[in-house]
Structures are given as structure tokens and as C-alpha cells.
């Protein structure tokens, strides 16, 4: 199996995630789809690290995982805050900041 196959899988996962972010309305699922996109990028990074023969890409993948964990923490905190205020848990209805 050549490196191209891994890149193809990563591209497919990224596109599925992008489609999910656009179509789903539950912010929890939108966050999950963001995870999918980040994981697709991660797979590409690790595949390129293997292609290049250096671990730098793997370090980038670890940093991306850290950033993803931060994003999840803040996002879930916001969802809990939204729930506590009895607002609808729906990204289409949460439009108070819209101009």
C-alpha cells in the first residue's frame, strides 16, 4: 500500500466531516464532525511523516490533538451553558450574535 492510499482515506474523512458540519444542526454533532476533519488532517500529517522519513509530522499530529482537545473542552462548556439557560440546542436558532 503506497502513501497515496493513506492520503485518499484522509481526504475522504475530511470531506465527510466538512459535509457533516454543514448539514447537522445539533452543536454536539457539529463538534464531532470538526473532530473528523481534524483527524483527516492528522492522518495526512502522519502519512507525510512516513513519506519523509522524519518524525516532525507526528509531532504536528500530537499538537493538533492537543488543540482539538481544547476546542472540545470549550465547545462542550458552551453547550452546557446553553443548556443551563434553557436556550435551544440548535445552531440555526442560536443567532443572537447575528447582525
Amino acid at each position, binding site marked *: *500500500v*503506497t*502513501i*497515496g*492510499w*493513506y*492520503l485518499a*482515506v484522509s481526504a*475522504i*474523512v*475530511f470531506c*465527510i*466531516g*466538512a*459535509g*457533516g458540519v*454543514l*448539514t*447537522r*444542526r*445539533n452543536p*454536539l*454533532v457539529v*463538534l*464531532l*464532525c470538526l*473532530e*473528523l476533519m481534524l*483527524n483527516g488532517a*492528522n*492522518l495526512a500529517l*502522519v502519512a507525510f*511523516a*512516513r*513519506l*519523509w522519513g522524519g*518524525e*516532525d509530522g*507526528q*509531532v504536528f*499530529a*500530537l*499538537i493538533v*490533538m*492537543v488543540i*482539538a*482537545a*481544547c476546542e*472540545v*473542552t*470549550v465547545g*462542550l*462548556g*458552551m*453547550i*452546557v*451553558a446553553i*443548556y443551563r439557560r434553557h436556550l435551544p*440546542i440548535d445552531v*440555526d436558532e442560536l443567532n443572537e450574535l447575528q447582525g
Partner: protein
Amino acid sequence: VVFPDIMFFIAAIGAITGAVGVVAVRNPFYSVLMLIVHLISLAALFMILQAQFVAAAQVVVYAGAVMVLYLFVVAYVGGGEQLASGVLLRFLGPLFALGLAVVLCMAMLGTALKGITTQGAHIGSHFGTPARIGTLLLTKYLFPFEVASIILMVAAVGAVVLARRRRGLEAVSGERLEFRVSTAPPALTGTMAEAAGVRVPRPQDMEPEVEVIGRRREGGW
């Protein structure tokens, strides 16, 4: 066909199936479970790519800790109805994803990167071990490593502040009363059964008991 090839196809099919499941399944609880399948398949792919440490971190940190956080929030907030989104996004979203896939495929097929059709560079047996990754993190990538740790701390504090319980009710005299409101929760709420979509009729005629447990001066929060 050799063993790593078979492993690759199994893991790749698992990863893509998991990804499709996350988007397609209606109940967020099952979406999280599908994402766990996806993450573990991806960890297998990392193993085949000689990234042992990243694979281990993926399973322990991601599929373990982060997904448990997700499951707790899904169980707390509950599934909620998943209505179909607007007509525009409903058709434009998949179309956009398809277009993105086409563009990425074009970029991949038209690449001048010759290594893409090989199995990768020749590597020693120590490639991707924790020792190597740790050395890189503490020498060449020390600054991104430290920045990442600070961002993690900021995110943790921010999440606590965002999700904290707002206490007290405003009284007329500028004095705050603390109430303790106790209602009997509807059956099965706060359990996995609720998160998995078992719907129970909510008792409408339940009077909340309110008792004043103390008075506090205004000031501070």
C-alpha cells in the same frame, strides 16, 4: 498481498464507516460511539505508518478521555430532536463536500510529489518511538509544546468558567436569596437510557418545592 495491506484495508474501511456513521446517525449518543470506532481504526492506521506513540496517544487520550467527556455531556444535555436543516444547506452541504473531494483528488492525482507512489522513505526500527518523539518535543519543538500546554490550561479554566452554575436569585431589596428548588426528576432522566433515546412522558403536574435556605448580602459572585 501481505499482512500490513490487509490491515490497511480493514482499518481504512473502519475509519470511513465510522466517519459516515457520525454524520448519518440521528442520535448524538450513537454518533459519539461511531466516532470512537473511527478513532480506533485511525489508530490502527497510525500503527501501520510506524507512528506508535501517536497511535497510543490517540487511543488513550482521544478515544478514552475526550470521548468520555462527550458521553457525559450527551447524557447530561440529552439527545434533543434532530430536525432536518434548511433546504439550502441540506443539498448544498453534501454538494460542497463532494466538490471538496473532487478538488483534493485532483490535487493528489496531479501532484509532482514522487514519493506518493512509494511505501515511504527507508526508516530505522526506532522510527516513531516515544523516545524520538519526546526528544523532538523537548528540543526542536519546545516552543510549540509549551504554547500547547498553556492553551490547554486556558481552555480548561475557560470551560470551568463557562459551564459553572450561576448561583442565587435576584431579590428586590438588593439582597440575594438563596433558594433550593427540588423537583422529582422524570423517570430515566440523567441515565444512559435517556441518552440512548428512550422517550418517557414528562409529568406535567409536579409542584416544585421551594425553600429559602439563607440570605446573603449582595457583592461578589
